[in-house]
């Protein structure tokens, strides 16, 4: 069974440009989460989808970030326009719909804004 897959693995963009990160969760997983780790700091929660609905987006830093999960399958996280402080590793995770089920993480996308 395929795990959580994230594209691209690395992205280098200039300040002011737009970048879209993609996450393909494990098939059948209703819960999908985005996290971010800025260098030297802890991994922080961004938002949580249940199927196509945003359950919790309290961690989204500002309105330059837009997450979607059309059809309840894969998800995208768009940053527009990107700023230097957006650099970091973006992780996606997914889990089954039941409450006490483990979340599985992808390998992350390393975003560098120059």
């Amino acid at each position, binding site marked *: 069974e395929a795990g959580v897959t994230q594209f691209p693995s690395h992205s280098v963009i200039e300040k002011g440009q737009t970048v879209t990160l993609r996450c393909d969760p494990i098939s059948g997983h209703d819960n999908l*989460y985005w996290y971010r780790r800025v260098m030297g700091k802890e991994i922080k929660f961004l938002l949580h989808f249940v199927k196509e609905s945003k359950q919790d987006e309290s961690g989204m830093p500002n309105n330059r970030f837009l997450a979607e999960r059309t059809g309840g399958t894969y998800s995208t996280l768009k940053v527009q326009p990107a700023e230097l402080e957006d650099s970091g590793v973006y992780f996606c995770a997914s889990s089954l719909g039941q409450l006490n089920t483990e*979340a599985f993480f992808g390998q992350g996308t390393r975003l560098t804004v120059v």
Partner: protein
Amino acid sequence: AQSVTQLDSQVPVFEEAPVELRCNYSSSVSVYLFWYVQYPNQGLQLLLKYLSGSTLVKGINGFEAEFNKSQTSFHLRKPSVHISDTAEYFCAVVYRGSTLGRLYFGRGTQLTVWP
């Protein structure tokens, strides 16, 4: 609010030595406790978790952790490490009643095992 403190950012040890990675948490409500590991160029992998029951939890690759409620700690231990244990280790908590994917992480501890 809750926070997770990993007291050591770097832990260097020699192969076959024992290791303890420390984790303390603060929370006004009950939590579940986790350790995740990130090997080089890989994603986060669940090492072990404490949800309820025995406070000594055994995980993969010979690791174990003990939940100490009075000290609000969840330290990770291994009696004899291998080169392949070199990785970054993250302690995390989840509010009881939340999905297990809603994690609050510590800053991570880089474990480096030397031959």
